[in-house]
């Protein structure tokens, strides 16, 4: 950009003017603020900004993966996508998964945090058991859960339910009624630890004197929870819900590894449909168009997130 701009002086410190030798010019350039940001900006431009713009162009063509016949087709891809029943069904699957997973992930995150916070006892154990799965790769988690639920009869989940007197005999991943729930179950086990930690930190930040005052007033445990804990957690809940929505909307790994989108495409999320049209169906232009429809959804949720964080900063200037 502006390579000729003289180096900005460090704040509030004057520097003596240096004679303009080649050495000092080089030194000035190296001292220049843009140099610090340039390496990042180059990578950012090449691998984020450029593909983002290139994708828009691709979505307006009928390009295939080899780059041959790439004709401008205007908004045809978008029109096709909006009338493609597979787009709608995979969008619906994505949203359905998001709803099904967000509710237990938020509620259980809060329950775990409340338990750990109120027990104040072996806190390392709770963290170990509830947060550990979060650091594992999705591939590892999904293969593990395939082994836990999938083999009927000798599968661990079936045997556990059998032991408890239930005889499920359900097709965890082969029955359209249960496949999505199995993916949700795996996801809850895997990622609830993140929300647990966010809630735990928020609980620890609630001033203790509020509870002591309420206790003096004779408020019971339930009343203290309703009138102090929950309102004080409002902001955290907002952030947790939005972060969870963003994470759940991007569902791909668990479905791809565990069900491949089946049975009957009943679990296939939008990202897998993008993958199928673009990478196995070679309709890259069409895949890009679907990507941007998905992106619009993400942007809407992100903007809500931005509003929430901005409001929380205004209410609570650090």
């Amino acid at each position, binding site marked *: *950009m*502006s390579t000729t701009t003289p180096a*900005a002086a460090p704040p509030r*410190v004057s520097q003596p003017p240096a004679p303009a030798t080649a050495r000092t010019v080089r030194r000035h350039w*190296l*001292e220049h*603020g843009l140099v*610090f*940001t340039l*390496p*990042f*900006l180059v*990578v*950012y431009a*090449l*691998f*984020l*900004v450029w*593909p*983002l713009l290139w994708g828009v162009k691709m979505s307006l063509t009928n390009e295939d*993966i080899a*780059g041959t016949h790439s004709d401008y087709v205007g908004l045809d891809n978008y029109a096709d996508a909006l009338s493609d029943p597979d787009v709608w069904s995979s969008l619906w699957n994505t949203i359905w998964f998001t709803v099904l997973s967000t509710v237990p992930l938020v509620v259980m995150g809060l329950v775990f945090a409340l*338990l750990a916070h109120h*027990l*104040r*006892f*072996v*806190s*390392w*154990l*709770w*963290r170990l*058991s509830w*947060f550990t799965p979060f650091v*594992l*790769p999705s*591939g*590892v988690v999904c*293969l593990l859960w395939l*082994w*836990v639920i999938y*083999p009927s009869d*000798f599968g*661990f989940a079936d*045997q*556990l339910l059998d032991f408890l007197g239930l005889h499920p005999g359900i097709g965890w991943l082969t029955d359209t009624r249960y496949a999505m729930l199995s993916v949700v179950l795996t996801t809850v086990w895997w990622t609830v630890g*993140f929300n647990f930690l*966010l809630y735990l930190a928020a609980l620890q930040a609630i001033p203790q004197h509020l509870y002591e005052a309420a206790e003096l007033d004779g408020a019971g*445990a339930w009343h203290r929870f309703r009138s102090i804990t929950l309102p004080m957690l409002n902001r955290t809940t907002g952030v947790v819900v939005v972060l969870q929505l963003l994470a759940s909307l991007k569902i*791909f*790994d668990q479905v791809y*590894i565990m069900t491949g989108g089946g049975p009957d495409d009943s679990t296939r999320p939008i990202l897998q449909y*993008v993958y199928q049209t*673009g*990478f196995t169906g070679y309709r890259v232009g069409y895949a*890009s168009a679907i*990507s941007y429809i998905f992106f619009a959804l*993400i942007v809407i949720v*992100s903007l809500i997130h931005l509003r929430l964080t901005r409001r929380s900063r205004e209410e609570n200037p*650090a």
Partner: protein
Amino acid sequence: MSALTAVRNALLPRGEEDSGGRTARWTPGRIALLCCAILLAVLWLLPLAWALATSLKPDNETTDTGFHWIGSHLTLDAYRKVWESGDLPRWLFNTAYIASVTTVLTVLLTAMAAYGFSRTRFRGQKVLYGLVLAGIMVPPQVLIAPLFAEMVSLHLVDTYWGVILPQVAVPAMVFILVKFFEGLPRELEEAAYVDGAGRWRVFWQIVIPLSRPVLAAVAIFTFIQTWNNFLWPFLVTTDPNGMTLPVGLVNVQSSFGVRYAQMMASVIIGGLPLLVVFVFFQRQIVRGVAHTGLAGQ
């Protein structure tokens, strides 16, 4: 027992006591809470324990019905077999290499950029920073088709750099570091300028050491995320020799057939490095999640 103590010490953030200040009495309500917590903790640990138990069985006993946690004898056979026959060591190396290089590059580039945005003034700075912030909203998953086309034309498919480079440009990390740098007191830096130090010396010798905790958090999260990333390495590697561990495991999933002990041994080996990272850096990880919402993207 001593191993348990060691794990506990590693897991306990400094200065935090188990009792957390005032010691509460064991009322019936609290005992009920404890029972709930223990039940849920056991429920969460069971799948991991079952995987571990399976991996230590002889292969032909894994499909026996009934709760047999331990087979006729404990054996490391499955581990030996997957280590010797499979691509596992290769994938472990690939993953470690890719995760390490990505982490070093990300920390270096984002820290420099954050310093540039928070401490210097140059033409176009506001616009560029706005552009970086806007990028936080772009999920990498949206870019897969054009990014792959770009990798084809750059001849980076099936290379380490093809996996690494798209994972380095993380605008959220720049944002977190800018926020942190803005909170640092400027007096030390100004004193250094008076003493004749240049920007780079100030950056390396004052800003970086002062930012060690936040840089550690950024590094740990980048490492975990890169190690665990599935979609992009899965798309950009077709050669089994270049795969990362999660991608490789999923790729050969079906070839395990009914050799579940070997499959679970691979799963344990695949998860172990992360468990070690977690136990050692638990304090930074907890702080990273709690205070910066890191890894929430």
